[in-house]
């Protein structure tokens, strides 16, 4: 019996010795000492309560700039006594009792010059993007992207580019309702309205915003479902969207149907994406979008957009490739037109410097029933991005643009883009 007790006592020993500065009495009282109102030790606390206790990594103070040699990285500090570490309340507004909002801003200022007839070299204010998130619970959250921007007539206006109410209870189903960026291809949902995030000065022709002459319905109002597809090494994900689609009555109207759909048909988009676990950074996907357009004075048009992408993006290297085919078929015996667009972009990081090159093309036939005036635009761009600071980038870019029936032109742009 003595041997039995001895052996049992061996198995009762913790494999990892308890930390000497972590006595059980301190553990019982530490949370209550740190934050008043914390439930009794031993009782689980909700996600919202937990979020109140600690800041997020995206809220951390800026790291020292690579150029700032006067500020050394702080030396390792010994762990402060638990009772002295007060956690700021980050996610709750105590005056209203509602979850607080987290803000992040993006913006840019540019200078551009080209040799097109009738254009002047100009400084330009970019979009002032207020990105707002709020966690209501571990399943519910709100996201908004409000953009203040000036147009070609120098008039400043505000657009609600994204507003999403999101529900998620597993990796396999996320439901978002509101205004979102349509999951056509990759670029649209990767960079949204932040020029700081994207490598180049501007978006490819193909993914230009509707109010900038873009040919894709990059915004939509409706419902979006997304999630992982279980099983397999391919890392498959799905996206299924249904929304109002784009306006088509006339080109001068607001392109995004925020409140009223011009017809009862809804735009449907389905996408399948693969992110193989064994190849981090690689993503491939296809999407299929369909809507019915009703332009004034013309037959209804069935719009089908097929997009494919293969992108490889790591912290050092970026190689982006996308191809989109837009089919417009007038109902009845009307003509069918196909517009194709593609781009390829390559960049590599050398310290704070990132040179890049892009080649792009959009080719819309002149008899296209929806955008007959787009024509052909194509050409290379080469540029250099320099990360002045972790939150600031300076870009220099040269563009050569060829157009069908018009003279080609050269352009040069420099842009200071930042997040705050």
């Amino acid at each position, binding site marked *: 019996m003595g041997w039995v007790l001895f052996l049992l006592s061996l198995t009762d020993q913790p*494999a990892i010795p308890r930390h000497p500065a972590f006595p059980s009495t301190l553990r019982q009282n530490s949370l209550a000492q740190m934050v008043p109102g914390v439930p009794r030790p031993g009782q689980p606390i909700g996600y919202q309560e937990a979020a109140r206790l600690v800041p997020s*990594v995206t809220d951390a103070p800026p790291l020292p700039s690579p150029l700032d040699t006067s500020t050394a990285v702080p030396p390792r500090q010994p762990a402060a006594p638990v009772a002295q570490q007060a956690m700021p309340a980050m996610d709750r507004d105590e005056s209203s009792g509602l979850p607080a909002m987290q803000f992040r801003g993006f913006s840019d200022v540019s200078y551009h010059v080209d040799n097109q007839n009738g254009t002047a070299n100009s400084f330009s204010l970019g979009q002032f993007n207020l990105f707002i998130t709020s966690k209501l619970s571990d399943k519910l959250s709100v996201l908004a992207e409000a953009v203040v921007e000036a147009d070609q007539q120098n008039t400043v206006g505000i657009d609600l580019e994204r507003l999403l109410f999101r529900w998620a209870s*597993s990796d396999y189903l996320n439901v978002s309702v509101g205004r979102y960026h349509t999951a056509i291809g990759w670029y649209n949902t990767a960079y949204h309205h932040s020029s700081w995030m994207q490598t180049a000065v501007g978006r490819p022709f193909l993914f230009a915003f509707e109010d900038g002459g873009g040919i894709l319905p990059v915004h939509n109002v409706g419902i979006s479902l997304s999630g992982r597809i279980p099983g397999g090494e391919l890392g498959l994900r799905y996206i299924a969207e249904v929304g109002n689609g784009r306006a088509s009555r006339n080109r001068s109207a607001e392109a995004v149907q925020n409140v009223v759909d011009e017809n009862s048909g809804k735009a449907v988009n389905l996408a399948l994406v693969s992110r193989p676990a064994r190849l981090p950074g690689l993503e491939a996907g296809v999407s299929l979008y369909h809507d019915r357009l009703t332009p004034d004075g013309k037959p209804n048009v069935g719009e089908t957009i097929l997009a494919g992408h293969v992108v490889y993006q790591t*912290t050092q290297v970026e190689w982006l490739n996308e191809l989109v085919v837009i089919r417009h078929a007038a109902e009845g015996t009307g003509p069918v037109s196909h517009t194709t667009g593609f781009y390829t972009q390559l960049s590599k990081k050398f310290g704070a410097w990132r040179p890049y090159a892009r080649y792009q093309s959009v080719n819309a036939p002149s008899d296209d029933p929806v955008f007959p005036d787009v024509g052909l635009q194509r050409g290379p761009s080469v540029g250099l991005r320099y990360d002045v600071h972790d939150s600031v980038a300076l870009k220099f870019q040269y563009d050569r643009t060829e157009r069908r029936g018009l003279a080609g032109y050269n352009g040069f742009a420099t842009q200071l883009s930042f997040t705050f």
Partner: protein
Amino acid sequence: MIESRCYPGVRRRAHLSGLVPQLLSWWSMATAVRVAATQALLILVFVAVGAPVARAQPAPGDVAIVVRPDVPVDNLTFQEVRELLIGDRQFWKPGLRVSLLMRAPATRERDVVLKTVYRMSEAEFRRYWIEKVFRAEAQAGPKIVYSNEVATELVAAIPGAVAFVDATQVPKGLKVLRIDGLLPGDKGYRLH
């Protein structure tokens, strides 16, 4: 002379001076055999039922992944650990969200995770999570904790929380996840 018990009628001379040591020797041998057999039997039983035996002590610098005991995961492949940290996996099971707790910058535990799992610098890590949240692929980035004690306190309090702490500072009551079947201190453990 004494009557032989084995062979009645046969008288044997009793050597009293050698009898006691002989008896003691027999008793010691029998006891030793009995004890050894019991030990062997107990070891076999423990091995059979998988009872924990004393594990190797964690090597200095090992970083442990700690969760509450009710998290329905005991072992993750290294690839699954990476999916967890980059936010590709955000739920342990439907209804139980993963709450990532990361040590503050300039701590060893954070350095190990950034170098080994993320393979990112501090600036790249921060940018990664800004982009992740901006793309609506995550509600928020990992939460920052300023000491191993606070990390383990929060793991114990928050359902679904996971933290990366010094393996020698894991209190009782929390579960240490295996990586590819290995615990801190095992040969080949990768978070070091």
